């Protein structure tokens, strides 16, 4: 299957992107005013203590030298030590990666589970009541700030109805899953609206398309026309939309993780930014970037799988 040959070659393309991101994060975090040593020591820090910390983490070196060290570490598969947590950044990230990953996956699945039926209903009733209803719901879904929405969900489902845990993550699989429902729903409510809009448009197009006409002309009932011909043809733009939105989605997890106290990378990142834990910010940014690149890569594979015409 030569159409899939890009799978082996594409990763080469990632290198410049990852490299670019490493430089940008490196410079960016160091441009932020404020000093990790001071954050670490608090307001009562003495100048000697601060100098001591700076020396310990190599922050007194010139930036370019720090970057070279960083690259050298990277080549050895390390990302330096967290200033705040004093452990290896990769090790730290490894402890935090699962909740974020699980959250993203659940949100995407849930969004799809919401978007496909919504879009189908809308598209098959285009211009009529159900269509308008879907459009109104989805515009409302996107308008609410997620932190507010999340809190409302907690109040409703956890406090009032006592159905689901308020926050946190859990230890067993089932436990984790029940903790993920509300946060995923919070993200899915906005993500699904984006997907619904795109799917709906593609489906309406598809229902009017020649492919659908041809299927009807050979006597296929509307059900088959829709599920066998229209839906598969609508998927590709949606897959790409999802891929493009990964960065945004990951950004969204930051707020949701903090509302739902999920011990993921988003929380780690926010705390790292506010405490100027350079190495951790760098590390998380790189991991996020790699994840985005990877998701786009997977989306490419999915696109190729979903549409035999596509060559990459």
């Amino acid at each position, binding site marked *: 299957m030569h159409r899939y040959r890009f799978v082996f070659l594409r990763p080469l393309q990632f290198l410049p*992107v990852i490299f670019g991101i490493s430089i940008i994060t490196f410079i960016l975090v160091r441009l932020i005013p404020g000093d990790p040593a001071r954050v670490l020591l608090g307001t009562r820090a003495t100048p000697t203590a601060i100098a001591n910390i700076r020396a310990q983490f190599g922050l007194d070196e010139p930036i370019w030298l720090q970057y070279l060290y960083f690259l050298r570490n990277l080549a050895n598969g390390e990302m330096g030590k967290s200033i705040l947590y004093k452990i290896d950044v990769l090790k730290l990230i490894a402890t935090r990666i699962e909740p974020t990953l699980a959250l993203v996956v659940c949100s995407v699945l849930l969004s799809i589970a919401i978007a496909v039926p919504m879009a189908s209903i809308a598209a098959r009733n285009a211009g009529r009541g159900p269509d308008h209803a879907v459009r109104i719901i989805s515009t409302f879904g996107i*308008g609410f700030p997620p932190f507010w929405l999340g809190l409302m969900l907690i109040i409703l489902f956890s406090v009032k109805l006592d159905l689901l845990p308020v926050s946190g993550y859990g230890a067993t699989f089932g436990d984790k899953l029940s903790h993920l429902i509300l946060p995923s729903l919070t993200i899915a409510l906005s993500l699904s609206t984006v997907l619904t*809009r795109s799917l709906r448009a593609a489906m309406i197009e598809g229902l009017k398309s020649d492919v659908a006409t041809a299927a009807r002309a050979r006597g296929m009932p509307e059900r088959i026309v829709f599920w066998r011909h229209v839906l598969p043809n609508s998927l590709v733009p949606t897959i790409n939309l999802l891929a493009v939105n990964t960065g945004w989605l990951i950004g969204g997890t930051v707020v949701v993780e903090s509302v739902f106290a999920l011990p993921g990378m988003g929380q780690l990142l926010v705390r790292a930014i506010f405490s100027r834990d350079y190495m951790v910010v760098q590390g998380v940014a790189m991991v996020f970037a790699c994840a985005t690149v990877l998701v786009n890569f997977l989306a490419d594979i999915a696109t190729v799988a979903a549409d035999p015409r596509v060559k990459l």
Partner: protein
Amino acid sequence: MSARAVSLSHAGWRTFLGKRTMLVAGASILLFFILMAVFAPLIAPYDPILQDGSARLQAPSLPHPFGTDNFGRDILSRIIWGARIDLQIAFIGVVFPFVIGTIVGTVAGFFGGIVDAVFMRIVDIILAFPFLVLMLSIITILGPGLSSFYIAMALVGWVSYARLIRAQILVLKNNDYAVAAVSLGFGRMRIMFRHLLPNAIAGSIVFSMSDAVLVLLSGAAVSYLGLGVQPPVAEWGVMVAEGQSFITTAWWITLFPGLSIVCLAFGFSILGDALGELLGVHE
């Protein structure tokens, strides 16, 4: 085969309105907020930042239809004044990315080759870059406030527009009228900006409407993380974020600004949908 001249008689307008309900509805919502912003000093019943220690945390009532916050400030007045800031956020937060992205996308798509490759790698990098890291870093570098927010939005947001426009230009530049323009000896600038861009831009205009919603929400998220506009300025996102602590005791502090965001977002969305239909844009 003669084309019918378009004349909008009275009845014509009626059918126009009939066909364009969405457009009209979206535009009206937007207009409503614009008027609200413009005439804020006239219609707001109270000074939006004036604190009244005797009227703290009052539930909605006749003198304060939307209630008051923990400083005794009138929520309605703050929402009305907030419209100024939020419309500004939506507008500026979209315009700069739009302009930058459009220019970059046009140039990259038109010239192709190395120019395109370089721009697209930059786009890749920014897309892969966690949006919030960039946003938070830039805002902390420049100090919280609107201008930092705009700069952050512009640095990140242009990418979507550049991608959209570039994709369009790549298709359009092989169109016969573009080839014709080349064969007739037109200059590159003319071809790019007079022939290609006007035909490529509809998608971006539609997208800019939903982008405005995202910008508003990013503003709110930034407020949640404490980096929103400087107090005591009234801004809806900040109002929702600040009101969070009263969410169970004084729901009105968050609900009304929240609803304002939703309504404005709603206006933008349906305007975007309608424009999309009008301009024949397929998402």
